[in-house]
Structure formats: structure tokens, C-alpha cells
């Protein structure tokens, strides 16, 4: 776990006021330990992504929330698809073939 102060110190570009604003808008959700606000490794990685978007790509604050919402939806969809893929992979060949037959086909084009 990383304390808020340590995270601000670790990322040169990060402004404390921005980080507090992001917490306020639930763009990142650290935990509280008594008085301290602490970030998991995953939270830290998310803050680094927020920094890249905000400072390197200069995405303005309102658009940042849109980008994060879409990003979250993308990862959510990927996890669902991965779970679905795993479930399909566990089925018998006949079931997999039936699912395959129901999907739009992909085939190599003739030269």
C-alpha cells in the first residue's frame, strides 16, 4: 500500500490537487487506513494512467472522466469475453463446433 504523500512524491508530474479531485470524482478509489489515504498497486497504476492522460496527452479534466469511463467499459467487456471464452473452451468439441457454426465465419480469402 502506498500513502497519498508518497504517491505524489513518486510521480513528478502529479499535482496533489488533481489527485484529490480525481478521488473526489471517484476516478480512483483509494482506501482509508485511519487518518491516512492509501493506494493499492492497482490504484497506483491507475493514477499513472490518469497522469499520462492528463499531463502527457493534455486531455482536459471533463474529457478525462469520459475516457476513464470508456476505458473501464473496455476492460469490463474484455473480462466478460475472457470468462466467456474460458467457458466455451471447457465445452466438448461438439458444443464448440455448434458455437462456431453460429458465429459469423472468418475464412482465408482466395488469392
Amino acid at each position: 500500500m502506498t500513502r497519498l504523500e508518497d504517491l505524489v512524491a513518486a510521480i513528478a508530474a502529479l499535482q496533489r490537487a488533481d489527485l484529490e479531485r480525481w478521488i473526489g470524482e471517484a476516478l480512483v478509489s483509494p482506501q482509508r487506513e485511519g487518518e491516512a489515504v492509501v493506494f493499492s498497486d492497482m490504484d497506483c497504476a491507475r493514477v499513472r494512467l490518469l497522469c499520462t492522460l492528463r499531463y502527457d496527452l493534455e486531455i482536459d479534466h471533463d474529457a478525462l472522466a469520459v475516457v476513464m469511463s470508456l476505458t473501464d467499459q473496455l476492460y469490463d467487456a474484455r473480462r466478460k469475453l475472457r470468462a466467456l471464452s474460458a467457458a466455451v473452451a471447457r465445452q466438448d468439441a461438439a458444443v464448440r463446433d455448434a458455437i462456431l457454426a453460429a458465429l459469423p465465419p472468418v475464412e482465408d480469402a482466395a488469392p
Partner: protein
Amino acid sequence: MKDPYETLGVTKTATDKEIRDAFKKLTRKLHPDLHPGDKTAEEKFKAISVAYDLLGDKEKRRRFDAGEIDASGAERPPEQPSGRFYRDYADAPGAGWGREGGHAAQDGFASREEFEAFLNQMFGGAGGGQRARAGFAAPGADMSYTLSVSFLDAANGAQRTIMLPDGKGLKVTIPEGAEDGQTLRLKGQGGPGYDGGPPGDAYITLRVEPHAFFRRRDDDIHLELPVTLREAVLGAKIEAPTIAGPVTLTVPKGSNTGATLRLRGRGVRNRRTGQRGHQFVTLKVVLPTTDEPALAAFLEGWRPAAPQDPRREMLK
């Protein structure tokens, strides 16, 4: 270590703004968190981060240009520690703050090439999940296109050329019996590989346009065909359109609207079995569109042998 100017795609005389703009552009294109399906994004992004760390800092750039430090001379390692991108958590198999608690997909569908291709496409994997080899070599990006195809071109097969953004033409053979939503893969026709890596693939998704009067269901063609009152009552040999041109069709005596005739083997050729489907012709009796006094006069005097009430069931 590659020349940082080359990595960012700028000249040695580039202004600070040009360097910053190049870094921004590459970050948008390559940041791993924004491209979770691109396995090569992390290495590429790290390379541009290192380059920008050097060139984005006036003093470091001056010392690099003066030969005081080399391309690996970033004294401070980039802030992104290895393996700590957000996607490493959010996209990890079975990890993340997953409500789904998904399991790793593994190589579950590898037994069937199409399924693998489908999944590769879903996950944007470059060339069947090959990892980038040492250095920067990596397969090129897969490209996706949508191609509108006329109903008859899809049914009979056709050759088409897609114009790519770079002006290059990409020849596509639409197979006989192509289906709406079907995807064709053109191996090696995607983006160029990186540093000697193989090119990506092009995926062409077909959108089949509807036809004015043919409808398709699997390998069969369905058609509503108007016939005159005379043809319906007396029977006739008439011409009917098929996907391969007109054929002669025998309308039996006393054919009603809704009667369906089958033209055997006049449907779409099945790509797996090589057999053609059928064409089903549903007749629709049409009355003359102009005044026919003789017909009216005949009906005035006509007494049916068996009086008919076609609405009886409806009015019970």
C-alpha cells in the same frame, strides 16, 4: 539502443514542441493501457518513453547532442516500473477488481482455426499471439475493413479491390455464397511488421446489400413472382429470374397466390458441400392493371360450379 530521434520519428533539429507532439501522438497510439489487446504495445511504449525522457528535457537533450551521454543515458529510469501498467491489473486473467472473476482463456479454441481467428480479432492479438522477439521486432498491426457487396456478387462470387488509405489497392476475392457479416482474412496484408517482424493481416467484413426481389435463407433463394390471372388459372410456361439468370418455370393449372414452386439446384452453392441450394418461387396472382371489359362481362355471367366463401373462417 536505438537513436531516440529515430524512435520518436523526429529530426535532430526538431523543436521542443515537435518532440512533444511526436511523443503525444505515439503515446495515444501505443500506451498499453489504451490498447489492452496489443501485446507489443508495452515494449514499444517503453522505448518511446525512454527516448522522450532524454529529448523532452532540454539539458539532457543538450548533453546527448554533445555526446556527453548516450541513448541509454537516461539517468533516472522512467517512472513506469516494469510490468506496472494499469492493464496488467485490469486485464489480467482472473484478476482485476473483477466482478466476473474470469479465468484465463488459454488457447482453448486453437483446435479450430476460425475460432482462433475470431478470438485473435476480439483480443486484437497480433498474429496468433506471437510474442515480440528480442529487440523491437514485432508483427504488424491487423487492419479491419468493411466491404459492401451486392446481393448477386455475394451469391455468385466476385473480385473487388479495396482502396487503402495509402492509395494501394487490396484485391479481395469474394467467395461464391459469401454471407452477410462474414469476415475474410488476407494474410500478410495488414500493417507492416516492426524491425523485420511479419506484416499483420487484413480482415474484411462483408456487408451484403439486400436485393430488390431476391431473399436468401442459408443456401436457398426465395422470390415472390407475379403471375397473371390467365397464367394462374390456365397454367403456363413463364420465365423466372434466378441468381444465375432467367430460367423457364412451369406454372401448373389453377395455381393460387401463395403457391410455392421449387427450382431445384438454383440456389446458392454451399461452400462446404459444393451443393447448390434451391430457389423457392412464391406465386402472386395480379389482376390486369387496365380496364378489361371482356373479363368483367365474363364474370358478370359466370356462375361458379362450387360457390366459395373465402372469409367464412374469419366471420364465424
